């Protein structure tokens, strides 16, 4: 269910790290909780964020959810497909539904994140 080579946060974001860059999105659990996603708002390319900053919003029919940057980062690219097809986040949250590509400013911060097994346990605990 959760890709084994990704890192995860307690706010239900994922990171796919490749060298000094990473893709960021929300997890399958997060999209399931939100329901039908109809609008995704993403930041400008070049913008920088500190760990914990809100960098975007995801809106389902009923609810608005903020998306948080797990680590210090600069935005390199945003997923332009989400403008016309926000439902990609529902259909393929861990791949085609990625939200932003970032430059990792401080790789040490990755150490605090969960791996797929820890995240799966976290989700289970949280929904009890």
């Amino acid at each position: 269910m959760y890709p084994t080579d990704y890192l995860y946060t307690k706010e239900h974001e994922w990171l796919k790290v490749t060298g000094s860059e990473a893709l960021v999105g929300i997890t399958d659990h997060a999209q399931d909780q939100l329901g039908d996603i109809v609008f995704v708002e993403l930041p400008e390319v070049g913008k920088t964020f500190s760990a914990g900053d809100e960098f975007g919003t995801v809106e389902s029919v009923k609810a608005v959810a903020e998306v948080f940057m797990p680590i210090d980062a600069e935005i390199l690219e945003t997923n332009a497909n989400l403008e016309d097809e926000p439902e990609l986040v529902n259909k393929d949250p861990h791949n085609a539904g990625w939200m932003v590509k970032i430059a990792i400013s401080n790789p040490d911060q990755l150490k605090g994140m969960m791996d797929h097994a820890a995240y799966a346990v976290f989700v289970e605990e949280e929904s009890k």
Partner: protein
Amino acid sequence: MDNDLRRTPLCEAHQKLGGRMVEFGGWYMPVQYSGVLDEHHAVRNAAGLFDVSHMGEIFVTGAGALAFLEYLTPNAVSALADGQCHYTFFLTEKGTFIDDLLIYRFNAEKFLLVVNAGNQDKDFAWVEQQAKAFDVTVDQAGPRYAQIAIQGPKAESILARVLGSDLSDIRYYWFRTLEWRGMELIVSRTGYTGEDGFEIYLPNAGAVDLWNTLLESGSADGLVPAGLGARDTLRLEAKMCLYGNDIHETTTPLEAGLSWVIKWDKGDFIGKAALLAQKAAGPTRKLVCLEMLERGIARHGYPIEVAGNPVGEVTSGSHSPTLNQPIALGYVAKDHAAVDTEVDIRIRNKTARAKIVKGPFYKRKA
């Protein structure tokens, strides 16, 4: 906390169908099953089945029933025939909303009032208090009654087949009682979706049977269970007000664009004097329909601005599944409330342009 919530007789049925349960107005209700968009489209194109047992039923009976309801509510109760119902309000002396409701006339001495779930205790207390001066009996029947709504272009054929009864002669805002499996059902051609359909009132004990029978029989026609999420997007497209959002104890029917309900030439009713005064002066704000011109979804509570100045507030807003674009309702100061006026909606830390449009956003083809 879930244990403190009220449950309808269909609660277990919802959970078996995979319904996602949430708190709504003190009730534990399904917000969605397969998904809000699927359910919404099913209602527009085929049919949807809603558990609305959380709504409150109040029977008013007795020789004074007609005179009492004429005084209690602003629509013309005396214009109702047996078997007919209409939309109306409970108003404060200030002319503001206590609730919106339907009144059903069985005969001149028996009426059914159907009120909002979250208001039913407040409403019953209000009706009881006002009833003291009249020769009537007031019965809070909500706890004994379930309500199931079947809505959509296929609703009539599915329901007629299940009930074994021709329903084509029940016109919009009329109703009939009929027997089904030893129970008395009240079947009315009404709804909260902007689609053709029916609302069925029945004793709690029969709710699961009717629900399951309808779903089994109707699934081949595209009937699906639909939750509160779809109910909200459907009613918003049809510009039907939601108490607590679009109408409340600080707004009046004149402001909400619901003056068509008020029958000025009937006798006195609670709130009449205040509404006459507001009518003479002209309401200072108006409930309007909004379409977004820039990306963003206006939501309940977001400020509406013109040239950086606040002129109002969004009361309901969502993505419209039928139009595939964001839509909203909101109150705007009267000087800025004309159709085609452009306004800004403050969405979190920025604004997005929107335009006032003539409602409703969706009207079914006759």
